């Protein structure tokens, strides 16, 4: 097994920056109790202004007065961590997110599919850069060694146990991931690198640093295999963006919406699934919520397509109150079956498959705007058709008009010519008893109509269809 350790040194900050409208302006994450607010992390622009992580907020405000302040939210960091674990899941089935700010991913099993490590590594890096997370990646034969080496290296790839011993040996004790007091203890003994620690007699070392540290050192070398809790992607996708300003137009929601839907597409690709229905919750002040449901007839997962449909539902919306947060919830996640297509089929430009066209039409015209047509086995004309295409029956071999009126209307014409009929159609006795004699008539204008008279009456005809 080969383990890739993806270290995310600025997980909290990157999680905020990637959703921020102006990531290049000075920005700082603030944490701590209200009496003593300190900067948790700062971005590059803020660093150029002299801000540092760990500074008290008051000091920072004297140094620079115009930086954006975002509250550090540990739940938000957990969500970003989960999201990245779901992303990593597409590159390997063994993903662990149990170590803070770190993803451990077993990759050897995936080489057949994604190519050798350099290619897979390039892929991981380009994905992470696109998602907006800074990262360090190290490959090692066991996850603990990979994690420890990532403290010091980026891009290191060790696939053999022999080389691992060497690389671990050169690692300074401070960077080895051992507890702080143990590091200090070893430092006082005059030890600087792990190599020196490993060469000590085991029993003597055990007496000095304790059994726990010995176990930890064994895990690093791989002598003590320790299973990790593995990540299972959630069955529901939930993502939320909170605005630190009020949004009053639906247009301004499109940028955060795009981010959310991109994340959803990443999640779906990791699951190899699609989404059939998702919910957009626009949260207003005082707990009021506007819900916009986006439903599709078939499962989809392409980000641009999903964005277009969501946009179609969001844009006609007039917001009564300003929006302070946007949440996307997708719980209906069926398997995704891509449409089959002929390889040699030359298609015109701007072509789109029928499913996509149908969703586009539904997004603008309404959910029920597009439907099919099928024959239903019923002799009553009003009931002889249905929009459910699955259940079909064979048509009656009777002359029937091509157009049917939804509601029969009186046919006012004094020079009607009866061409055929009557054909009696009766409704069932178990419902409203209707008995009609249908005729094919020609109007004075030359149209051929399908009209009826109630049985036994000689009044005017009721028009029910056109033989067009």
């Amino acid at each position, binding site marked *: 097994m080969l383990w890739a350790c993806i270290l995310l040194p600025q997980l909290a900050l990157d999680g905020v920056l990637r959703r921020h409208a102006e990531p290049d302006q000075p920005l700082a994450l603030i944490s701590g109790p209200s009496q003593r607010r300190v900067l948790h992390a700062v971005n590059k622009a803020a660093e150029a202004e002299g801000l540092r992580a760990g500074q008290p907020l008051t000091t920072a405000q004297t140094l620079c007065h115009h930086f954006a302040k975002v509250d550090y939210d540990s739940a938000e960091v957990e969500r970003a961590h989960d999201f990245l674990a779901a992303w990593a899941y597409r590159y390997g089935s063994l993903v662990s997110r149990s170590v803070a700010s770190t993803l451990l991913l077993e990759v050897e099993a995936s080489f057949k599919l994604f190519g050798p490590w350099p290619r897979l590594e390039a892929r991981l890096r380009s994905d992470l850069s696109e998602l907006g997370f800074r990262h360090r990646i190290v490959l090692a034969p066991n996850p603990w060694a990979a994690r420890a080496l990532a403290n010091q290296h980026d891009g290191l790839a060790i696939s053999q146990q022999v080389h691992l011993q060497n690389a671990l040996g050169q690692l300074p004790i401070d960077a080895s991931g051992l507890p702080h007091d143990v590091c200090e203890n070893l430092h006082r003994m005059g030890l600087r690198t792990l190599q020196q620690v490993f060469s000590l007699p085991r029993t003597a070392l055990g007496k000095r640093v304790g059994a726990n540290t010995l176990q930890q050192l064994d895990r690093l070398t791989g002598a003590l295999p320790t299973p990790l809790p593995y990540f299972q992607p959630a069955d529901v996708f939930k993502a939320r963006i909170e605005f630190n300003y009020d949004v009053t137009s639906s247009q301004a929601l499109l940028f955060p919406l795009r981010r959310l839907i991109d994340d959803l597409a990443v999640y779906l690709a990791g699951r190899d699934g699609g989404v059939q229905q998702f919910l957009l919750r626009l949260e207003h002040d005082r707990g009021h919520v506007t819900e916009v449901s986006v439903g599709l007839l078939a499962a989809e997962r392409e980000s641009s397509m999903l964005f277009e449909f969501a946009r179609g539902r969001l844009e006609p919306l007039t917001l009564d109150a300003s929006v302070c947060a946007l949440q996307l919830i997708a719980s209906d996640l069926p398997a995704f079956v891509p*449409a089959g297509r002929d390889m040699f089929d030359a*298609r*015109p*430009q*701007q*072509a*789109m*498959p*029928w*499913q*996509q*066209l*149908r969703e*586009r*039409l539904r997004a*603008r*015209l*309404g959910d*029920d*705007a*597009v*439907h*099919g*047509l*099928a*024959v*239903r086995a019923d002799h009553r*004309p009003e009931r*002889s*058709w*249905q*929009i459910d*295409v699955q259940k*079909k029956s*064979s*048509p*009656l*071999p*009777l002359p*029937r*008009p*091509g*157009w*049917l*009126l*939804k509601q029969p209307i009186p046919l006012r014409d004094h020079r009607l010519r009866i061409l055929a009929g009557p054909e009696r159609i009766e409704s069932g006795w178990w419902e409203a008893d209707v008995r009609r004699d249908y005729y094919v008539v020609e109007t004075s*204008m*030359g*149209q*051929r*109509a399908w009209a009826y008279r109630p049985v036994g009456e000689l009044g005017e005809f009721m028009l029910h*269809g*056109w*033989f*067009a």
Partner: protein
Amino acid sequence: MASVVALDSLLDSRRVWRGQPQQRAPSKQPTGFAALDSQLPSGGWPESALSELLLPMDGIGELRLLWPTLARLSQAGDASPDGKIALIAPPYLPFASAWANAGVRLEKLQIVLAQPRDVLWATEQCLRSAACVAVLCWPLQADDRALRRLQVAAETGQCLGFAMRDAKAAANPSPAALRIVIDTAPAQLRVIKCRGGNPPTQPIPLSALAR
């Protein structure tokens, strides 16, 4: 001359009038009626183009004229999800059994209900998508520009477009490749415009539309 223009391509682009009728490739979309095919310059519906049917009133034969074509198109496609026949904002309900009896495979038929202002948009989307083999629309207000958009969309999507309009529009020019007026008394078809040739002078009686 900087470049030599092949004679064939020059003649094919039909920018040179040769004073004699040119043999054109027969249309792959016959109307299904020999009497009408023989009158049309391409021997059928103009391919990848918009055709207009101008009707003075409802129910006088537009479906009889189109059904053979729709039946052929719906039976040609296999089980693929594409190759739909879209009806955009039809004025009445299509009677399923009558359409099925005419040979149209109903699973290929899709009905799009649209408000009058969305009809042209929906038609353009369907024409352009190449997911449909034929698009029938009933636009209430369609000006020259709108029809030109539809014509271009039909070319892009390589699709047969049919616009059913009021016969009053016959007097206005239109960018459609083929325009047919259906008269009631006497019942006949008049081709008033057909791309690639002069329109036939004689009307075609509707009674001749028997296969």
